[in-house]
């Protein structure tokens, strides 16, 4: 685990729990997709959620964020329900979940990240626009600010989504497959930003597909397949045993270290 997050923890309360999930069960049409999940995510980690297709990875994030209603269980963000902590949580949905032909520009999409702090009715002003431009700069998309979003490549669209989360200036970031369909350059750019966030003491939770890159990118990992298989530091629990338990077959992955 990175030393920087250790020092950060000492500054705040030692071993603070950023996200606590208790007995969470979620079902689509009475078919459970998450069974009795107990999960504690410590503050300041960069965590991957891994598991096969249909394991409920996106569902877990969506239920933590109150987008889906669980049939049982509870979620706490720094000891309080999510509804009270919206301001400190940012969310990057899957790129495919929105219509990129929507008539709007890159800058406008990033500005949407400021809507949460504005609340109902109040409109974004100069301050919000400035924050959005800064976030665009951070992801290297400033030259494209007025580009219609359908005119952006897949990697650029993903950067726009990341900028929209950055503008929220949250403490916890949830990201649903931010590396899906992006080129190598964008993947490196994104992971560098995520590592920067962790360095700044933020907690970053990422639904991730590429098992090869887990040890390189992340310091914390949760194995999920309808039930929670394991959670903890990558160096302790990212092993063939847990991979086999999660993916059901005798899974071998060469860990590059």
């Amino acid at each position, binding site marked *: 685990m990175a030393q920087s997050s250790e020092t950060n923890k000492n500054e705040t309360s030692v071993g603070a729990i950023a996200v606590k999930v208790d007995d969470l069960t979620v079902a689509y049409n009475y078919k459970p997709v998450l069974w009795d999940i107990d999960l504690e995510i410590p503050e300041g980690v960069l965590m991957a959620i891994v598991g096969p297709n249909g394991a409920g990875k996106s569902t877990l994030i969506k239920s933590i964020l109150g987008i889906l209603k669980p049939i049982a269980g509870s979620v706490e963000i720094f000891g309080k329900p999510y509804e009270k902590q919206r301001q400190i949580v940012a969310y990057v949905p899957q790129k495919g979940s929105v219509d990129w032909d929507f008539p709007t520009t890159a800058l406008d999409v990033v500005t949407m990240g400021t809507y949460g702090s504005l609340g109902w009715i109040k409109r974004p002003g100069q301050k919000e626009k400035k924050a959005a431009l800064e976030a665009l700069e951070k992801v290297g998309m400033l030259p494209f600010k007025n580009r219609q979003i359908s*005119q952006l490549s897949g990697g650029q669209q993903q950067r726009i989504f990341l900028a929209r989360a950055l503008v929220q200036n949250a403490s916890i970031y949830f990201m649903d497959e931010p590396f899906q369909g992006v080129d190598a350059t964008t993947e490196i750019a994104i992971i560098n930003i995520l590592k920067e966030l962790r360095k700044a003491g933020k907690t970053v939770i990422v639904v991730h597909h590429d098992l090869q890159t887990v040890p390189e990118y992340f310091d914390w990992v949760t194995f999920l397949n309808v039930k929670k298989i394991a959670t903890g530091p990558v160096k302790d629990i990212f092993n063939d045993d847990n991979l086999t338990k999660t993916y059901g077959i005798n899974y071998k992955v060469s860990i590059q270290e």
Partner: protein
Amino acid sequence: MSNAQIEIQLIASLVAIACAIPGTFLVLRKMAMISDAISHSILPGIVIGFFITQDLNSPLLILLAALTGIITVVLVEYIQKTGLVKEDTAIGLVFPILFSIGVIMIAKNANDVHLDVDAVLLGELAFAPFDRLIIAGLDVGPKSLWIIGSILIITIGLLLAFFKELKVSTFDAGLSAALGFSPAVIHYGLMTVSSVTTVGAFDAVGAILVVALMIAPAATAYLLTNELKRMLIYAICFGVFSAIAGYWLAHVLDASIAGSITTMLGLLFLVVYLFAPRKGIIAVMYREKQQRTEVSLLTFLLHLKNHSEERERHVNHLNEHINWQKVRSKTVLDLALKNNMIQFDKNIVSLTEKGEQFTSQAIDYIITNQDNKIEHMKDDFFLFRG
């Protein structure tokens, strides 16, 4: 123009604006068919409201009918949620049933209700000026004008207040929920406005035109702009234009006003569909043709780059070597010359410095797919615009 004529055009224009606003969001939410369902299934609400109030223009009737509209949406979503039928099927099941309940109620009480099915479908805009609103003995104008005017003011007020919420929940419902703007609240808010507008416009323009006024202007505007605010403004302009032009078309043809307005909406859409600068059919076909030519150009340049032998680059042998027909070869050669990418030296073609550079960059882009390197070429070449 007589007073009645002005009043009819004014009513039609206000209806057009009131419809274009929710219509824009319905189109973006891919819910166009819901407006069709609402416009038909409010009929029983109107009939029941009329039994109670005995006044087609009473606000209570409008609310009752709008409630039927909301019930339609709830029923459609409920049936869909069971997973047994798809959404379009659910819509097709719900609204004809509610509509026919309304039709039967009218037929059974024909003596009490001055509604007939023709008027319900096509409206009676021409008669709107005859039904006046009299306050303290003073004639303040047609009732329809006041009704649709009030609805329009409320709609504009809601739009201004909740524009940001409507935008984010339409674009990204997940983010909207995470930020605390309940997509369900906004969804039902929009459905309520759509229902109230439909009822308010119904008496004047009928069930079919209401759908056309909601969907056609927004669909037309969608082809012309990449910005939500502009799309709203364009949709409003198209709606008003069709309303007024349609009125005069009906005047000239001595035909139904509702029918003529709908015809104008259709014609306007057709024109934009064909000629819109970026998304129109002709623009798309032109772009595809240009892209094909540019791919050929690149193939040709690559051929020149890869072959230093003179026989491969002799102007008379190019056709055989690249295996193209004369017309295509000529188009490609012209394009290359126009961009100073090739030069001739005694009928031997070779790349200029610019041609060399362009070829390397283009190939590099195709291999790496890195957009930032070719940003400056996007304006000149369709090939790089995705």
